């Protein structure tokens, strides 16, 4: 089994002259979906490029292999096929999770750390393409509030501490708090962001909960994965002996990613999703800037303990 050995936030310039074994992104109708892929393939050699889709393929490109995913376990199957075909000591994989649903990229992270393989090292680059601001829409009804699939933690008698990564849709956070019923609540939201309207919308649409839990509300720098990690680690270290730590990310994806990575490093952390199933608000998600990416390098090694 592999363990996460270390991680860094890097820039696009660091992704050059690499021999990339697998590039995985997701296909939907968002304008930002191939921003990273188009940049990367200019300066790197990519052996296999995969675009995952759910129901519809929104384009047709010769440089991508399209694979349908109806359930998160199919991501495991694809990884099994592709990764086990790589007969080498080091694997390099790039995951653009900008357009992926949470369970897909969580499955990738979990698979890399839990599956037996012969690699000495896996370099996994996870990239996010920030989008331009678009006005928040009215929230859709929840179809489920539950742990993200792929990781099982047996229920126990300890109280729950909920870390809620706030999004910008109105009333979502309050409903989740009431449904999960935690003993402790921590709110985290992005401030500063790449466009201050994101923060303004978060603060307006979550004013009730921010007011209620003012003393346990924290902000993080949207573009700094280290800042997100530090805030989450601080809460974890303080409360993990008495509480079950649940992180429920309803805000931006880089926060979700860091939460997931921490849940792999600290097995007792759970990630819960709040989904509205197939009835999801459509946002245009134009890229904020063609050259702006938030990229994280995660290195997995055999039998190493972090």
């Amino acid at each position, binding site marked *: 089994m592999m363990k996460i050995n270390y991680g860094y936030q890097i820039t696009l310039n660091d992704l050059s002259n690499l021999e990339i074994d697998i590039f995985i992104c997701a296909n939907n109708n968002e304008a930002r979906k191939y921003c990273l892929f188009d940049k990367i393939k200019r300066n790197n050699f990519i052996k296999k490029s995969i675009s995952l889709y759910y129901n519809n393929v929104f384009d047709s490109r010769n440089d991508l292999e399209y694979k349908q995913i109806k359930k998160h376990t199919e991501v495991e199957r694809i990884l099994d096929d592709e990764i086990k075909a790589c007969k080498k000591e080091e694997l390099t994989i790039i995951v653009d999770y900008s357009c992926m649903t949470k369970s897909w990229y969580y499955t990738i992270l979990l698979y890399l750390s839990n599956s037996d393989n012969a690699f000495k090292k896996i370099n996994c680059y996870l990239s996010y393409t920030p989008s331009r601001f678009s006005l928040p829409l009215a929230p859709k009804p929840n179809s489920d509030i539950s*742990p993200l699939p792929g990781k099982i933690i047996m229920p126990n008698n300890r109280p729950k501490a909920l870390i809620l990564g706030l999004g910008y849709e109105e009333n979502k956070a309050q409903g989740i708090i009431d449904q999960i*019923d*935690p003993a402790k609540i921590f709110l985290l939201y992005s401030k500063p962001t790449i466009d201050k309207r994101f923060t303004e919308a978060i603060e307006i649409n979550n004013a009730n909960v921010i007011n209620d839990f003012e003393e346990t509300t924290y902000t993080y720098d949207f573009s700094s994965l280290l800042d997100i990690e530090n805030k989450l680690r601080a809460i974890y270290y303080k409360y993990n002996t008495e509480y079950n730590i649940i992180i429920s990310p309803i805000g931006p994806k880089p926060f979700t990613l860091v939460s997931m990575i921490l849940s792999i490093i600290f097995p*007792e952390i759970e990630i819960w999703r709040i989904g509205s199933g197939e009835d999801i608000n459509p946002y245009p998600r134009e890229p904020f800037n063609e050259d702006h990416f938030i990229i994280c390098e995660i290195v997995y090694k055999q039998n190493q303990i972090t």
Partner: protein
Amino acid sequence: MAVNFQNSFNARNLDPKEIAKNFIYSQSFDVLKNKCHTVILGARGCGKTTLMKMLTLPALYNWDYIGAHKFIEDIPFYAIYIPTDISWLYKDFALNDTKIDKKIIDLVSKFSVNTNIFESVCDTFLNVITHEFNNDDSLLDAEISLSLILIDLLKLDFDIAPRLESIKENLRYRRNIINQNLSKLIYNNNYDFEYFDFLHLNYIDVLPLILDHFKRIFEPKKNSWALCFDELEFAPIWLKKQLYTLLRSTDQRILFKLSSSPILPKEVDEVLKGDAGASLGNDFEIIKMWDTNSQSSNEFSKKLIDSLLKKKNIRVRAKDYFGSNFRYLDGLETYTTDSEYLSQIKSLATKDISFREYLINKNIDPQNPIPTDKVQLASVFRKIKPIVYYRNYFIKDNTSTKISYSINKKYIELYSGYEVLIGITDGNPRWLIGLINSILNRSDLHKADTNIQYDEVERTSNRFINFINNTPYHKQGSKISIIEFIERVGDFFKESLLGKVFNPEPYSSFTYDSNIMDFTEIIEKGLLQGAFILLDEGDENFDFELNNKRFRLSYMYSHQFKLPLRTGKEIKVDKIISDNITVPNLFNYDEN
């Protein structure tokens, strides 16, 4: 400062000592302490957890109540509190959402429940030792003796410290081993699951032995133990079936106290209706925590409000502090020409032609609406009172082809006052405490302004509605969501009350028949969350079937749908929600 509902009162997250500080004694608590199996049914937040936790020794010994000492002596058992929460349900789903073999899933699910029970047993032993015995060296020896037996019976490592806290810690550690085992199993097709011996432990077999050893070593005052399974609606179905089967048990050493949602699942119905099924009255007692008797529910709310005023050092009587809302003062209205009610009738008759015609048909003069006799007073004047108040408040003009309504941003007169505050949360202590504390935090020691009361009623209602709106529900195909269902029902009731045609008996409750339209999941979830209130009369029935039952919306929806806090005539819900079901949204898998 805003009141934090989450922290203001949520029994699940409160220490038993904290619960005891706020506990209001009720008849239900008396029933619960009987030496028999008991089932408590009620919606979330209705006080089930409070009752269950109050049975534990830390709560009882911290209960500031004149009869507490006698109660502790009288209670015939030690309560072993076993919490369940929503995560149990979803984790069961998560397990079933993997490619793990069904046999392993069953084994792991049972291991998980058993481990939680054993942890709770250790907690209870520690509580009994702390509260019922004088602390001396012999107690330590006794705890070590007991712990050695537990290590053996629970198949723990023999090298762990023979103390109850160590046993708890090792039970937690054991759970982590299984978590890791499962992770390996999920991501590696060839991984062999380790079938540890302890996975096969079963509390039904082990617990009587453990309790006998405790009795032999400690000689406690009481000989019985009550396994208090709280919020059983979230437990795995095998556990529910097992526990309802065990209600037949006549072993007086182990009693079962089960709390669950108002409607029990069909699987439990099968168990109870089977040949060996437990029967109400003979094998167990039942406590229904919803408003089957509004008078007792109101009494509970009144006591709770009094206790909250007392804590804030408010010495004014609650009724004077909040003021009365005359619209809800039954039987106290006058019918003289200068009375408030008759002036409302006259006012409405001038702007609502439909109402005027109704009065004329009843031989009542719209300009001088005095009751002619007691029969008319009861059958007309009293019956239509809330309707008159609401129509007069909201209708601006109903004398032409189209009805028009007054535009008020606030309905202060309708949704403020002591009677409204008592009724609006349907006796649900969590919401009532949140509401009253919100008002008290913004008021002085002498009076709560109606504006403030209204603002907080509105805020609390909105919060409740948002809570319901966030209830997870898998909307399939052409079915409607919980939100849509409630909106259809609420809008229908509003139209029945405030529509073009005056209706002396507007609809405000509904009956359900799944054979016509299937809304079972919506109604079950709504009942559990408190959105719907079951209106059955008999306390002697168990409720498995939703069919032909009568329901109303929680009064927390009154403000949204402009309804009075009254329950009126029923209609079949399929007539409200006809076949005009909204077209589902097109699939879009985008995510922000």
